[in-house]
């Protein structure tokens, strides 16, 4: 589904991504871990098309379509969903109104007929229940006055409503207490199908106890330096990132010799 080949990207002239390679197939869950500043959030921003990043090299394909040629809204309509690490507040714009606008754009793109108000509300209700999102939050202004946890849960609710192919969750677990983490993870697990895929960007192994990944990748200094299964996450949890850094430094010095 997603194919990233040798992706390099700059922000303000500084190279942040230095040749990322990643293949994600439908039905899979990939976790991307790594220490602070390794480029995890940059990768999600570049995939979503944030303007201040400049792609200098490489390719990104989504089901055979060149993602890098598309505007952010086109990527979204093609089925890329980014659950933001810091969702913004938009005063006066009701959550539901915003979702209806977004959904209608996506449906137009997919050649689906518009949903009637009745069907839309029915769907809203179902998805709210599925991801345990309070109805009162759905009717408030978009994220305005929401707690950190409520904002993250709203991201998952939106994900449920928009039904993307590829969901990238950028540190969705950060700032969540254990109950909220469980609710968010349950929601995501229920949304997993054979046709969609998830990329979980996380700092901690904790999230992966709830959402079990098929693959774990370690991002360090703008590159994926190691890939494995969920055991890799456990190893990282146990040893921290330092051993990996040490090991990599060792390799580098060997290479220099």
């Amino acid at each position, binding site marked *: 589904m997603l194919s990233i080949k040798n992706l390099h990207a700059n922000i303000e002239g500084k190279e942040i991504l230095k040749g990322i390679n990643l293949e994600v197939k439908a039905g899979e869950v990939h976790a991307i871990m790594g220490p602070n500043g390794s480029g995890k959030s940059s990768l999600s921003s570049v995939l*979503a*098309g*944030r*303007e201040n990043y400049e792609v200098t090299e490489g390719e990104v394909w989504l089901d055979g379509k060149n993602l890098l040629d598309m*505007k*952010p*809204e086109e*990527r*979204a*309509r093609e089925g890329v*969903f*980014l659950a*933001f690490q810091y*969702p*913004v507040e*938009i*005063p*006066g*714009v*009701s959550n*539901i*109104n*915003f*979702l*209806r*606008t*977004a*959904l*209608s*754009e*996506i449906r137009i*793109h997919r050649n689906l007929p518009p949903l009637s*108000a009745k069907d839309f509300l029915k769907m809203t209700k179902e998805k709210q229940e599925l991801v345990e999102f309070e109805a009162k939050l759905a009717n408030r*202004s*978009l994220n305005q006055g929401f707690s950190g946890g409520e904002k993250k849960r709203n991201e998952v609710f*939106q994900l449920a409503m*928009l039904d993307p192919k590829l969901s990238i969750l950028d540190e969705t677990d950060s700032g969540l207490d254990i109950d909220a983490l469980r609710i968010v993870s349950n929601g995501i697990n229920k949304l997993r199908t054979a046709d969609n895929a998830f990329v979980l960007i996380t700092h901690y192994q904790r999230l992966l106890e709830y959402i079990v990944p098929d693959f774990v990748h370690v991002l360090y200094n703008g590159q994926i330096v190691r890939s494995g299964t969920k055991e890799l996450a456990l190893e990282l949890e146990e040893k921290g990132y330092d051993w990996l850094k040490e090991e990599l430094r060792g390799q580098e010095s060997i290479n220099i010799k």
Partner: protein
Amino acid sequence: MEKDDMMLDELANKEYEFGFVTDIDMDISEVGLSEDTVRFISGKKNEPQWLLDWRMKGLKAFQKEEMPKWQNFEMPEIDFQSISYYAAPKKQAKYASLDEVDPELLKTFEKLGIPMSEQKQLAGVAVDVVFDSVSVSTTYKEHLNEMGIIFCSISEAVKNHPDLVQKYLGTVVPHTDNVFASLNTAVFSDGSFVYIPKGVRCPMELSTYFRINAENTGQFERTLIIADEDSYVSYLEGCTAPMRDENQLHAAVVELIAMKGAEIKYSTVQNWYPGDKDGKGGIFNFVTKRGACRGEHSKISWTQVETGSAITWKYPSLILQGDYSSGEFYSVAVTNNKQIADTGTKIHHLGAHTKSRIISKGISAGEGQNSYRGLVQMGSKAKNARNFTQCDSLLIGDQCGAHTFPYIESKNNTATIEHEATTSKIGEDQVFYLNQRGIDSEQAIALIVNGYAKEVLNQLPMEFAVEAQKLLSLTLEGSVG
């Protein structure tokens, strides 16, 4: 959510939608302003002597007055002698039905979406259309008549209800008020008149559409609304004007009078032609609007959505005379490209326990300049009077400007005045967030702006709120890089 959908559907059209000219035979006065012009207008309308005398007083005042200098923009040169002060469709006869109305005119109305059709009437809107100075159609009159409500053109009111007109005309905005009000007094062509008798609640929104059509014809409407004791009326004024290259002057006067226990809600959606991207053409909108809460517990609220005009110079004001009277001013003003808006309100608290609330939302895009200018005055007898003012500015891009000039004067130490102000920019993060959900930047801005203005838009009657939302989006088209 229906509102937003309808609004978003409209985003496709780029050029000023209502830019077309209707070809109808016009009866136009000669260019220029003199005593003869005033006599010509008054004579055309078969006015009584007292009205002609009053017009003459207005003319004399106009000739003495100077253009205001305090506004936050350079006043354009207006050659008052190159304007034609009267234009009326030649077919003067009143129509028994729509079938008799000039089809060209009807087509124009259709393009404007003026709700003259049966279905719209069923929706409960009585429309008094002012088409270049003379009213051509008044609907729902009979129904209103039965309740004792008078809703007609001011010319008709002069003929049929001269006592009422003479008693109230010019009592809120005197003929000496300012240069534009004096000019209006001298040459006002037509406008609306509303009288709601004691204890009557007007059952529908009263609505008038003003529209400038003839080239070089300034339009000078005069509106007078009187709500007698314990009555209620909601009135909506909507404007659209066709595209013109020359600047056209628009100097209207609106007077509202609320007696004891009465309430008037006055809403405006203003969409005059703003000029092109380089600031060529566009309407100069110099309007004097004022309401007097004469009786105890009376209430007047102004709601305005100002999206059009090259220059908007407008301060709908309130005189809170009666004890416990209250006033509200809700405003959204948008400037894009080279548009200028200098708008706000003046609220004079004279009576005790009077209350007022000001919510102003300015939006600037392109090279637009947007000023809020407000005066809150507490008189010596305004015991326990209260005012709350919130004045927000939203900037889109880095070429535009937002300015705030709030004046406060208090002569009573029991009065409370609160003022809050914010300035914000539409954040790239907000736009990107919406982009990431499949919404393009233009729609994203429309959503954000409508959210920002919601508190004011919510004050408008439902169907006009939809129109206002559309206008906001249309006005801001192309403002995102």
